[in-house]
């Protein structure tokens, strides 16, 4: 039942995503939608990792960076086609995630937090220091746009569809995953790891799969980011940037397929909104008020809506629907 309604929602979102660029011709707004798409993609896996496996990872930005640099190096230095680069990116991110997760996923949550901090710092140092390969702190210039065969994803609209297509496919995969055997195992893991173990679930393997999945999605997100912007620099993939993705997930709601999407929208809207609104109210306000608002948002959501916005919206929607189901059906009949 839940799966069906989720698929329905996904359908509605897909229609909205397709229509949007036809309605909105403003390239700035389109850029914002692309941004929301990549943030969703990078945070998606984290939703399951935090929500079901209870593990904190600070490595989302690092995986994004690995994806971006892999894509850049493969297309520019090795002259491979972008599609092959994207596949390689997925393979490399999954290997990296496997290696990072291998020693620590057996233990309690803060070990993964620790190792992912260490891993992110190491990746960041390498991006800066291996300047022959990565371009160093100045960044990597001239990544070609993504292409499949002779079709080149050039321009904002093509990239918009590319990123949102990937987001929708990933959400579809997660919906299916959660309604499968793995999903039920995750549900057990969430309520009690001991119970999951005694049911014969290999919790280590399960957490590993989720961690790799999160890493691969972030890696692909990073590669698409590189193809879209054609320029990448290490600072985008700093460990501190990972906190943004944690914020997105917490604000949007853990354990909800829609958490990452809702969180990405809310955080982007707040960020962009503050950038434009604050100078109107306080002329010389800079980024500081943005980050205060950002932190406050995180704290307030956790204090007052600990489940995040996603599940809370869903719950209120469900309550309303149950209460007015009959009347709604009537109005539907009338409109038909």
């Amino acid at each position: 039942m839940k799966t069906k309604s989720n698929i329905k929602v996904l359908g509605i979102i897909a229609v909205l995503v397709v229509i949007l660029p036809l309605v909105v011709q403003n390239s700035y707004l389109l850029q914002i939608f692309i941004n929301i798409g990549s943030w969703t993609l990078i945070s998606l896996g984290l939703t399951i990792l935090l929500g079901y496996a209870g593990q904190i990872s600070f490595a989302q930005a690092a995986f994004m960076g690995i994806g971006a640099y892999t894509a850049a190096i493969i297309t520019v230095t090795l002259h491979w086609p972008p599609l092959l680069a994207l596949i390689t990116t997925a393979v490399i991110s999954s290997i990296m995630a496997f290696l990072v997760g291998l020693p620590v996923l057996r233990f309690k949550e803060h070990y993964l937090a620790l190792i992912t901090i260490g891993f992110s710092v190491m990746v960041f140092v390498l991006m800066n220091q291996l300047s022959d390969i990565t371009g160093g702190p100045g960044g990597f210039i001239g990544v070609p746009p993504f292409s499949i065969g002779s079709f080149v994803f050039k321009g904002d609209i093509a990239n918009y569809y590319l990123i949102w297509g990937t987001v929708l496919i990933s959400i579809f995969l997660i919906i299916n995953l959660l309604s499968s055997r793995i999903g039920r195992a995750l549900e057990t893991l969430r309520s009690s790891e001991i119970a999951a173990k005694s049911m014969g679930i290999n919790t280590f393997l399960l957490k590993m799969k989720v961690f790799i999945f999160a890493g691969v999605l972030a890696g692909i997100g990073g590669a698409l980011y590189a193809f879209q912007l054609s320029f990448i620099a290490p600072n985008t993939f700093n460990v501190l940037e990972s906190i943004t993705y944690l914020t997105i997930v917490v604000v949007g709601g853990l354990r909800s397929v829609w958490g990452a999407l809702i969180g990405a929208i809310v955080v982007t809207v707040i960020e962009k909104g503050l950038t434009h609104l604050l100078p109107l109210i306080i002329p010389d306000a800079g980024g500081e008020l943005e980050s205060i608002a950002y932190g406050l948002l995180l704290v307030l959501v956790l204090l007052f809506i600990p489940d995040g916005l996603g599940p809370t919206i869903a719950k209120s929607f469900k309550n309303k629907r149950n209460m007015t189901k009959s009347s709604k059906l009537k109005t539907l009949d009338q409109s038909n």
Partner: protein
Amino acid sequence: MNIEQVILTGLTNGSIYALIAVGFVIIYNVTGIINFAQGEFTMLGAMIVISFVDFGFNMITAAILTIIIVMGISTLMYGLAIYPLKNTKNSLTTIMVTMGLGIVITGISLLIWGTEARPLAPFTGNRPITFLNASISHQDLWIIGSCAVLVLFIYLMFEKTYFGMAFRACMSNKEASRLMGISTEVMAMLAFALSAGIGALAGIVMAPVTFAEYDMGMMLSLKGFVAAVLGGLTGAPAAIIGGFVLGILESVGTGFISSGYNDFIAFAALIIIMLIRPSGILGHKSIKKV
């Protein structure tokens, strides 16, 4: 660079990490919370002390006022954002709250003090002292010295006072200590205040060496956390050793390989240590797997 110099530099940086790590461990053991705003206390300590000195206060008054203010901020933080979560079973929520608080504090500091790095004159003379084959500045001695004094202070407080006994009771068994009439909420609040005071002290002594920048808190939190886990998150002595290990690993990386790679070396070594001893250097051997 010679080995003595590397070790001395490591001890200096390690003292800072040790102080931050002790703050982590005190809060973690009393409340079960990993406080990612810990580095912000250090940033605030450095920032506020510089402001007081700029106002014309002498160093000692400025330091004492700073520590009191930072402890007050921490208590306020506990009361407003951490205490309301006392019934939350999900430790993730509280960790994320402390991170959010860290971001808020960083933002407010940016608002007050701006982006430039703010200097502070060393407490005493500028001439480095030569010791064995290494040279060490007065300020480095201040850093190492205050770490040593603090360790002594913590030891005496925890082992010799009634208050320390209540603290230890809370650390070892929350339920039992509540039954004995110890208010765990008050203890948690005091843990936050104490950790903030220690963090602020770290900020005050390091300010002349590193300068103070509004955004240094989060990185200090991460490094302090790393040092604390390296020590096993069990107690203050282990955290201090964790801090020194991290500091020395970093300075070995800088001194013998390349300054660009020091973080890489430190964290690579850290991961290797964690693989060999997942319970930390001084941690209990039996690790809770469930």
